[in-house]
């Protein structure tokens, strides 16, 4: 009980820090955002208007070190009247501010694009599972054979080939040469196939290796000998007994990898012009220097990642009683 409370406390602390880091990142921008957005030709009034609308006229933090007239810096205390508090207060009300360009609420922009990214990540995961479980079992059952060596070399290549190499190659082959799929966009249902394979390739490779070593380990356990001794077919031994235990670490990896998929989706989305949160971050955010949009995207992706990892941890504890005891 105490352990659970401590974990929850730590979780809250981590989320608070992550959000704070993202909030404060905007202070790293060289120069000020207003000139970056409005350009050098903006009048002082335009700049003042912009800063007021986006709350940038307020002090950055509880305290600042502004320059005084002779160029030195002095300490100044602002109390609760600062941007950091503003950001938190708005965030807790579900308001992530307005985009610097176009003045749309950032939350609306994200809600519009995030489902496509989650869809892509889940499709990638599905494809990875579909490939890796049979392949890993096959390699693990035939350890040391040529099937095993081939599958481990293929897995290593899968890990080493980044999405932005696989993706354009798939586009070249299946969209440009064969014309089976469209090269970009998410208009039709089958458009998800190429991006999902691209995004899931590395995960398939990692999972294949995991399933393989899991199967090898479990095959040495006593219960396997018992199952074999009572005359179960090898097929039943592997798929009913070994896989059930062997999949526990795989579930953990799947959970942890979902975050990697979300980050990888940024690259995949760029390759296929997939209209998800990745292209929102890259085009509307970084491309337009709309720091508010960048903040929102980074925040939402990180918090999703933390949530998924926490859930994975909980599921893992449920699945494997050995961990609960220790």
């Amino acid at each position, binding site marked *: 009980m105490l352990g659970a409370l401590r974990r929850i406390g730590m979780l809250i602390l981590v989320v608070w820090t992550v959000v704070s880091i993202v909030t404060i990142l905007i202070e790293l921008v060289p120069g000020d955002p207003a000139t970056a957005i409005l350009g050098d030709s903006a009048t002082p009034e335009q700049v003042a208007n912009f800063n007021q609308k986006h709350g940038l006229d307020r002090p950055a933090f509880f305290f600042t070190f502004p320059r005084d007239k002779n160029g030195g810096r002095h300490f100044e205390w602002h109390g609760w009247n600062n941007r950091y508090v503003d950001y938190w207060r708005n965030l807790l009300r579900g308001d992530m501010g307005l985009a610097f360009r176009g003045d749309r609420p950032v939350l609306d922009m994200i809600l519009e694009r995030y489902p496509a990214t989650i869809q892509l990540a889940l499709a990638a995961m599905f494809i990875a599972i579909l490939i890796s479980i049979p392949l890993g079992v096959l390699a693990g059952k035939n350890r040391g054979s040529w099937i095993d060596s081939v599958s481990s070399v293929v897995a290593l290549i899968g890990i*080493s080939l980044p999405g932005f190499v696989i993706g354009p190659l798939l586009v070249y082959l299946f969209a440009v040469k064969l014309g089976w799929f469209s090269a970009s966009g998410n208009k039709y249902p089958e458009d998800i196939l190429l991006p999902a394979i691209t995004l899931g390739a590395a995960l398939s490779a990692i999972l294949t290796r995991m399933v393989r070593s899991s199967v090898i380990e479990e095959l040495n356990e006593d219960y396997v000998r018992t199952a074999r001794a009572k005359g179960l077919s090898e097929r039943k031994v592997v798929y009913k007994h070994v896989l059930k235990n062997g999949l526990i670490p795989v579930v953990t990896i799947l959970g942890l990898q979902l975050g990697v998929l979300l980050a990888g989706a940024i690259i995949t989305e760029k390759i296929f012009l997939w209209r998800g949160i990745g292209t929102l971050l890259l085009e509307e955010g970084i491309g337009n220097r709309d720091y508010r949009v960048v903040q929102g995207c980074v925040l939402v992706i990180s918090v999703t990642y933390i949530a998924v990892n926490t859930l994975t941890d909980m599921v893992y504890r449920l699945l494997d009683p050995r961990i609960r005891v220790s």
Partner: protein
Amino acid sequence: MNRLSIFGFVIVGILVLAALFAPVITKKDYEDTNSGIRNQPPSAEFWFGTDAEGRDIYSRVVYGARISLEIGFIVVIVSAFIGTILGALSGYYGGWLDRFVSGYVFNVFLAFPGLLLAIALVAFLGKGFDKLILALCVIGWVGYARLIRGQVLKVREYDFVQAARALGAGNLRIMIVHILPNAIQPLIVQASLGMAGAVLAEASLSFLGLGVQGVPSWGKMIEEARGIETPLHVLLFPGIAIALTVLSFNFIGDGLREYLDPRQRKR
């Protein structure tokens, strides 16, 4: 050493030589554009062909090895250094320091998925060589710190450490002379895998348009090669370069792990 890691060492050796002697082994300037020879297939004159602006792909791939290896190397050294110090202190002293570093700081840095923090840092700081390195170190050091912390926790309890303490050795001496040498093997493995990761991360950021500007980089070459009418070779050569580099460092890491850990060798 298994065969794959020897393959890895050979490829990395070739890459390092290519990066060092890039001006010697290329004849054409990597920046020379020529609209008359766009998208030419590989030939005796242009070994890897030319890209959409008529630039020599061979020169660009060779020079691309420079930025890739340079950034990878610096990032691995800096993150391993920071990670080792923080991990060793945290593991050795334990107590509130360990609770703070491993319970809180590690978790904060691990709470950002993969490249996202690096993308965010470059997006806010701006592009550039030093900023890219900073961003990659920020996401890189935690892996080393966790590894070293775990090793120190294990080694700390060994009899020879207790013996050294009984003989009156100070904390610093115990840490540097007795504990760290015993934690160094997994660090070497992690560093070569980290090299693969750093090269990949640099290429990814370049692909996203967040890399170092003004020098040829494999990631950027692929980004430029994505057009529908671009021929395959423009995409293929930088792609092979990235894949071979990352694969080689992974092979080396796996091979070293097996070599340094006799328990794995027997299997």
